[in-house]
């Protein structure tokens, strides 16, 4: 009926200590590992090729950025990457400080010490270690009993001292019995004391001052506030945040707006980048960020960004940067929805819009050239006798001619431009087929996936016909692990390095979006597969098309890395035998380059 | 029939967009 509270503060420090320990240890371990090991993995710098490409591009990216962009990026990166002074690290430090304070308090607490003394420790009493043998215990006992035997005491001792020594003798005898005599030993092991169960007290590990008359209303109030105000507020905030964003990370209102546009889209209207930008400008995310601006404002800001113009009335550049930065997730969300509605044209133009926004280049037949730094647009458009639209074509000319074509007089600037141009990855298809792991062909109702072997190359490099690569280089491993999960091979590739995108508000990595459509109805079949891992080491090879004349002498296939993309198919093969044609589209999100767009035949055979 | 007619009448606008884009 009566509750004993922790009057002497004996128990609650331990309780708090345990709680702190349970939280601090995993937190400290995770923060430490993030601090020391996180860096290398995140940067994908494990691969030499990736590192080289990244280094080349990062330097130019940095040089081409204007001051406002640099300030913005630094601010953004600081808030994301302050590893040392993050909230979590501060919490860990404070936690350990509290821990130390509690330990100190326990040490200094007399009440705890008194209880500790009451604990019966036969080993300490006999002066032996816990691992002492029976013989050691016996000899220790004999020695001590001789020393402390009541009959052997000197006559000159006071009565208190005599009582104390007698007590000692009793304790030593008990200790000896606890370690040797069976019954006493059992008692000791079960109850912690040779005499059997001692008094055990149960109480509540809360210091009494918390439940005293004076403090208890405060405690009750604290509970009330916690349960009826703080908790509901936190839960509702979390819930509404979860509910208001879709799985892809866009606001539900934005998603429903996109779906509305997609469903009401008239096939007679040609999809253009302008149309996609118009759809983007109605996104809820923008309204939340800048409630005082209208959709027209956002549309103008995005157009200004793409055309590198200043027509908007909003002069604050950070507004533009934030709007443009948000477009990344919005476009991914739109792409996903467009694939869900099975509209191929919209999906493709969404990816084109992505490139326009990342590179701040309008969609023209010359976008591949315009994405390069230092290009004089006037000179380029007026000059070219031979129509140059692609990077590959540009590199058929000598460096001096290129400087004239692009209108770049400065040598350093020309070097920059050529470095960027030669490090933009191009994909070349070597082989594409439907594979069913463990089987030699696609049988009815099986689950095939599309296996694509490709060559990542630089626009500067000479073209290598796919036939030049022997079958042995394109083979898949046939072990059980591969059959279980054929997609693991993509995980072995390194992360793509940071892109050259000095106009985009944050550092970003290139990705390849893979779309699959059915040729019969020209409609997309499934959600896009985003590939973020691909080795770019081929880009570092010196294979200039202007220098290499003969593939037979200068080319060794084994020097080149073959990339693999595996696309799972969302549905099984048809039930009947026959040929089904699929169109596979693989587009880069960051660069205007030669993307892949080809047909694969699924030959369903018995 | 009306849908067909609308689609037919959109040809002029489509042509304009193509010229602008290309």
């Amino acid at each position, binding site marked *: 009926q009566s509750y004993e509270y922790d009057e002497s503060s004996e128990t609650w420090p331990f309780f708090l200590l345990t709680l702190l320990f349970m939280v601090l240890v995993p937190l400290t371990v995770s923060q430490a590992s993030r601090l020391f090991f996180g860096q290398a993995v995140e940067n994908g710098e494990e691969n030499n090729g990736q590192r080289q490409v990244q280094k080349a591009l990062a330097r130019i990216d940095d040089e081409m950025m204007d001051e406002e962009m640099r300030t913005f990026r630094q601010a953004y990166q600081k808030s994301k990457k302050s590893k040392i002074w993050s909230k979590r690290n501060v919490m860990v430090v404070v936690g350990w400080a509290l821990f130390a304070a509690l330990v100190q308090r326990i040490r200094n607490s007399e009440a705890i010490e008194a209880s500790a003394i009451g604990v019966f420790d036969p080993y300490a009493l006999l002066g032996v270690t816990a691992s002492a043998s029976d013989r050691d215990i016996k000899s220790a006992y004999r020695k001590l009993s001789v020393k402390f035997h009541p009959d052997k005491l000197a006559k000159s001792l006071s009565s208190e001292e005599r009582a104390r020594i007698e007590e000692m003798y009793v304790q030593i005898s008990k200790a000896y019995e606890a370690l040797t005599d069976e019954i006493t030993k059992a008692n000791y092991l079960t109850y912690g004391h040779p005499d059997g169960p001692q008094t055990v007290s149960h109480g509540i590990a809360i210091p009494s001052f918390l439940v005293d008359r004076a403090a208890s209303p405060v405690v009750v109030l604290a509970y009330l506030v916690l349960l009826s105000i703080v908790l509901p507020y936190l839960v509702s905030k979390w819930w509404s945040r979860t509910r208001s964003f879709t799985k892809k990370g866009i606001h539900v209102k934005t998603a429903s707006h996109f779906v509305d546009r997609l469903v*009401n889209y008239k*096939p*007679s209207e040609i999809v253009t980048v302008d149309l996609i930008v118009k759809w983007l400008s109605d996104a809820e995310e923008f309204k939340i960020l800048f409630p005082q601006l209208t959709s027209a404002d956002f549309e103008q800001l995005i157009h200004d960004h793409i055309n590198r113009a200043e027509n908007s009335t909003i002069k604050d550049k950070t507004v533009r940067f934030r709007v443009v930065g948000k477009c990344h997730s919005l476009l991914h969300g739109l792409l996903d929805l467009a694939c869900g509605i099975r509209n191929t044209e919209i999906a493709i133009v969404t990816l084109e819009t992505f490139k326009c926004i990342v590179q701040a280049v309008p969609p023209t037949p010359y976008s591949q050239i315009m994405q390069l730094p230092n290009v004089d647009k006037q000179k380029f458009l007026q000059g070219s006798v031979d129509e140059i*639209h*692609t*990077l*590959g*074509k*540009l*590199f*058929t000319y000598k460096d001096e001619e290129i400087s004239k074509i692009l209108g770049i007089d400065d040598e350093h600037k020309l070097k920059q431009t050529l470095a960027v141009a030669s490090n933009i990855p191009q994909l070349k298809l070597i082989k594409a087929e439907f594979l069913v792991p463990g089987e030699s062909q696609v049988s009815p109702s099986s689950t095939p996936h599309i296996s694509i072997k490709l060559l990542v190359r630089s*626009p500067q490099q000479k*073209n290598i016909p796919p036939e030049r690569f022997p079958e042995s280089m394109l083979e898949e491993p046939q072990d059980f692990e591969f059959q279980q999960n054929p997609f693991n091979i993509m995980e072995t590739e390194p992360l793509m390095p940071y892109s050259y995108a000095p106009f985009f508000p944050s550092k970003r990595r290139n990705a390849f979006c893979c779309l699959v459509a059915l*040729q*019969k109805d*020209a409609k997309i079949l499934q959600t896009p597969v985003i590939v973020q891992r691909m080795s770019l080491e081929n880009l570092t090879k010196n294979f200039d*098309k202007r220098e290499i004349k003969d593939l037979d002498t200068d080319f060794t296939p084994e020097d080149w890395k073959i990339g693999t993309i595996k696309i799972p198919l969302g549905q099984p093969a048809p039930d009947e035998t026959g*040929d089904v*044609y699929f*169109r596979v589209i693989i587009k880069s999100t960051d660069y205007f380059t*030669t993307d892949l*767009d*080809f*047909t694969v*035949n699924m030959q369903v055979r018995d | *029939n*009306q849908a*067909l*007619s*609308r*689609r*037919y009448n959109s*040809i002029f606008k*489509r*042509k304009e967009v*193509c*010229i602008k884009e*290309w």
Partner: protein
Amino acid sequence: YDVNSKRLKCTDEADENLQTNVDQVNSLTAALIPETNPNFTPQPHEDISKLVKNLFDSGLKNAKQNKFPEALKNVSLAIEMAQRKRAPWEAFAVQLQELQFMLRHKIDLLLVLGKYLDALQDLDMLLNTGLVQPEVFIRKTDALLKLGRLDQARIECERGLSLQPQNTKLKALNLECARRLADFNG
């Protein structure tokens, strides 16, 4: 509702779909009012069919005489007439077939006369109305190549080939696309 013109008008807040619906109702009304036959049927009107056929036939005759610009004019006029004069309740299947038939001839004339962009629009129209056949893709690839849209040409060619993998013309066009793209990409 305007009693004089017998037409509906949308308020400013109307969305696109409502506007389309209202337009449809208006054109239906406009076609119904001058209709004199109380027992009209979906059967295509005799007079209009004759008019269209006459125009079209004269177009074909012009083509046989290699007078292509006149042929194009007549065929285009025939199509215009069919689109404008026919009542909305006339059998859709008949209208569609007639349109597709005439469009195919118009496209060939456009290609001969070098009006590739117009041909492309008509080809897209054919595809949108469901005429998904290799012949359409052959012409579309050709038009796109002539317009310099090499990537798109190859894509259309591949789609055509997926319908008929052994089509010789498409295979030849495919090689042509590959050759021109190789040069385009340096």
